[in-house]
């Protein structure tokens, strides 16, 4: 009895595998654009083997059993890699759920003359595979969360670029919401760029910031003070009309800070401070 299930699976492996693959290929959820049928076959066979190796009437009611460690690891690996490849949770879940249908089919034909046992095993197999499919979802979501947290830190890095716009002038466009982690990065990157480029003017452009609340304002004030301590001047540009109104309503005092409506205006101001003049070239100069 002990090895009945294992033996059955082993005996029926070929049929199980073919039928499961048929089921998957027939399903509209199959992403043949993301995975070749060879890969699908290899993955499916591995899963069936891992199940066959350990399944017994003892552990069938205990999905947490260490017997299933290999199978769980295998399924976890598959769902994480599918999460990365861009499969939807439904597509990933169907992989495991369609195995259940196949197993039950095979069981049904094997135990056609023993309805009591068939019923018993059907219930148990269903529960076991349901359990695996829930874990598959969990791992899939964990895979996605890892991707999100990695992207978040990448965004923090790439969304605070410092550009040297002229000899002695650096500019930093701020885009998106400024949370505490980002405000810190913004300040550090700007100060560092001032030192590295030996600039005396920094322009902080806030056109891409959704709004200026007291915390963003305070951060801007701090950044301006810090640049002054380094002997440089900081201009805040990109103050949209609604932002100007909000700053007034909040009662924030930005009168000690040079603010400009656009980056172009800020650059113009900076040229003035550096006593640089930009002018249109005389037409005759070239032809002469």
């Amino acid at each position: 009895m002990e090895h009945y299930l294992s033996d059955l699976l082993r005996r029926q492996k070929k049929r199980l595998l073919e039928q499961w693959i048929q089921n998957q290929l027939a399903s509209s959820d199959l992403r043949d654009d993301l995975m070749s049928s060879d890969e699908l076959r290899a993955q499916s066979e591995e899963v069936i083997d891992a199940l066959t190796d350990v399944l017994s009437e003892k552990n069938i009611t205990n999905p947490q059993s260490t017997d299933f460690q290999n199978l769980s690891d295998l399924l976890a690996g598959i769902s994480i890699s599918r999460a990365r490849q861009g499969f939807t949770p439904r597509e990933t879940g169907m992989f495991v759920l369609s195995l259940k249908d196949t197993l039950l089919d095979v069981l049904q034909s094997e135990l056609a003359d023993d309805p009591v046992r068939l019923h018993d095993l059907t219930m148990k197999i269903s529960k076991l595979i349901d359990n695996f499919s829930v874990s598959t979802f969990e791992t899939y979501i964990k895979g996605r969360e890892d991707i999100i947290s990695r992207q978040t830190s990448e965004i923090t890095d790439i969304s605070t670029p410092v550009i040297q716009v002229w000899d002695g002038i650096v500019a930093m466009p701020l885009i998106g919401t400024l949370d505490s982690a980002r405000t810190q990065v913004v300040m550090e990157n700007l100060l560092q760029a001032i030192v590295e480029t030996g600039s005396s003017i920094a322009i902080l452009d806030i056109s891409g910031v959704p709004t200026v609340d007291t915390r963003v304002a305070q951060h801007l004030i701090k950044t301006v003070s810090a640049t002054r301590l380094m002997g440089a001047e900081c201009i805040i540009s990109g103050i949209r009309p609604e932002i100007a109104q909000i700053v007034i309503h909040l009662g924030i005092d930005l009168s000690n800070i040079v603010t400009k409506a656009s980056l172009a205006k800020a650059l113009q101001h900076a040229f003035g401070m550096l006593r640089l003049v930009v002018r249109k070239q005389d037409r005759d100069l070239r032809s002469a």
Partner: protein
Amino acid sequence: MIIISSSETASIRTEQDVARLLHRIKAVAADTGLGTVSQTKLMTAASELARNMLFYANEGVSYLEQISQGTKVGIRLTFIDHGPGIPDVDLAMQDGYTTNPQSLGLGLPGARRLVNEFAIISTVGKGTTVTVITWKL
């Protein structure tokens, strides 16, 4: 009588929750027909109130509702926390009053100036509830 035509609830536990809430407010405010200036003012008020919850009460809950009263339509936001509460609300509503030396003390009074209606109820040891309304002009 105020009639609520849509309502959504969000728990505020992290800065990401605040950012998400602000995005939702912008979308719902635009859907209600509020102009860019009103939208941004409301978002800014919400940012102050949600961050106060986070900072002083650790966490809280926000309600974002589309409302109407007679022929007027607008947005009502409610922020409820079960933090320490504010001992003197009148004082807290003054410009520059803060218990945090790092801050400007402009969040509450500033938020009041950014919306059409503002109400705050706070009980020490129980928590704080702030409700604001912006009507479509």
